[in-house]
């Protein structure tokens, strides 16, 4: 049984990674799971300089999910390289660094700073965070802007780049095609859906930021649909995510066309979720005599 997958020339021992921002850089969850078992660790978004993020409340629960408006708080690329990448040196897993910024130059700065970092296998470009006011999301909601930033980053990046797409668009395939045309090596989707919750007793927004990104099991059908549509539209590999909590969920994404899968908010619900997903995929492969996991990618169409 072979669970290996390949994303842009990088071989993962299995398709399972984590949603950026739900797993830190692995430190906190290393108390619960053996990081060596993961296909890859995807780190919390990092910018060229430290970002303070949004005011609290930053998180709230909704039916079958949650909203967050962390606002990409991060300590900046210098601390990240010294601390987080150093921490990950001890582990035998691929590292996907999620990169955020407010301007093209911000992204370029981070990408260039990371170009010599041996511990970085892939870059995931976050152009779809709904919680940052200054521009970033615009790259993820307009095809021409997405094309522009993707082609610019391709000029500077040493590692393959994964463009992380926003689901808050009319046509996900238009965005996917633009990223592919601009040279993206892979896509990841979906980022969170923009949502809102109002506290009817206090008559206030539940989040200080008013809106937040929705994640959790509730959004899975939308994510599966977008992964499927995208898989029909482009040839580059897809890392599927959005509500994956179980192996069954992960397999659903793979059958829909995802090469890799990310466990996101489910880490908060069950810190062992990633391992359970990995083991459950293996169990499914045994049950149905699937020799290579790649045989399942896009098998339903």
């Amino acid at each position, binding site marked *: 049984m072979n669970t290996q997958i390949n994303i842009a020339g990088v071989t993962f021992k299995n398709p399972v990674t984590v949603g950026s921002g739900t797993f830190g850089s692995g430190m906190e969850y290393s108390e619960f799971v053996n990081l060596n078992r993961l296909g890859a660790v995807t780190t919390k978004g990092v910018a060229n300089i430290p970002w303070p993020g949004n005011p*609290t409340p930053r998180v709230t629960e909704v039916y*079958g*999910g949650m909203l967050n408006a962390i606002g990409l708080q991060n300590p900046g690329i210098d601390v990240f390289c010294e601390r987080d990448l150093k921490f990950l040196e001890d582990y035998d897993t691929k590292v996907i660094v999620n990169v955020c910024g407010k301007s093209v130059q911000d992204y370029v700065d981070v990408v260039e700073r990371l170009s010599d970092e041996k511990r970085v296998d892939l870059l995931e470009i976050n152009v779809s965070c709904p919680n940052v006011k200054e521009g970033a999301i615009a790259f993820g909601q307009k095809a021409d802007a997405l094309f522009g930033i993707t082609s610019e980053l391709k000029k500077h990046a040493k590692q393959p780049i994964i463009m992380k797409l926003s689901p808050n668009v009319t046509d996900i395939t238009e965005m996917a095609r633009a990223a592919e045309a601009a040279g993206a090596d892979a896509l990841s989707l979906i980022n969170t859906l923009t949502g809102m919750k109002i506290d009817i007793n206090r008559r206030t927004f539940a989040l200080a930021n008013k809106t937040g990104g929705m994640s959790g099991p509730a959004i899975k059908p939308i994510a599966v649909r977008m992964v499927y549509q995208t898989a029909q539209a482009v040839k580059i590999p897809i890392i599927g995510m959005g509500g994956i909590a179980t192996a069954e969920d992960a397999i659903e994404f793979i059958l829909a066309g995802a090469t890799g899968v990310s466990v996101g908010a489910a*880490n908060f619900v069950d810190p062992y979720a990633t391992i359970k997903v990995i083991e459950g995929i293996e169990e499914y492969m045994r049950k149905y005599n699937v020799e290579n996991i790649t045989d399942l990618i896009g098998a339903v169409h």
Partner: protein
Amino acid sequence: MKKKTLATVISQKEIAPGIFDMWLKTEIAAEAGAGQFIGVFSPDKSTILPRPISICEVDKAQSAIRLVYRIAGKGTAEFSKSVAGDTLEVLGVLGNGYDLEALQGKTVMLMGGGIGIPPMLELAKELFMQNEKLTAEGKAECKSEIIVVVGYRDAQTFLKEDLEKYGRVVIASEDGSVGTKGNVMNAVAEEGLKADAICSCGPMPMLRAIKKYAEEAGIPAFISLEEHMACGVGACLGCVVKTKEIDHHSHVNNARICTDGPVFLAADVEI
């Protein structure tokens, strides 16, 4: 080591309107202490996140943790229905807790307001036990003097008898039905209480008043903060509080309440 595990309900009863008292049998008890909390998961899958609930009492001999909590929404409402023998998933033990050594030889006011009262019980108990240990070791001068100041809404003085086992208990109630009419600060004034240190948990306006009082009195106040949480283990950055100095984790003056706290020195945080 933190873990997610299955706990068994030993008992549960409503001790005041909307306030529940639950004992859980769980291996987590072995590492649990005053000021820490655990995440409790609702059996209903439409609510997915753990509810952070502060530890009211620990019984290590019985591997048991006592939680006294208020129904605040769907999740707590759901597990308030659990009865003896039911199981609940829990995550823990979480948070830093109170530093008991730092309180040795001091007069300590334990100030709890409303649903901030329960964690004061385990703290009072641990200080009381530390006192006994110090006495046995011949270090009676290092004992803490324990004054518990608790503020209730009305005459529903839950946990009062438990607290009285470990120290003097001074009461305030909003409606004046028991003790000083008003809040814990009114009780401190009315009783002319003095202390070398404060440990506190309660609503934000009370914590702000205590922070101010402690600064003016030149004494340390250790306050336990609350914020909406997702992961509870320091990964999601949902529950942060602004800190005075740049902290080593965030580098942007945002300490994580779930892991760097929930107990902070009041002077260190901007609330």
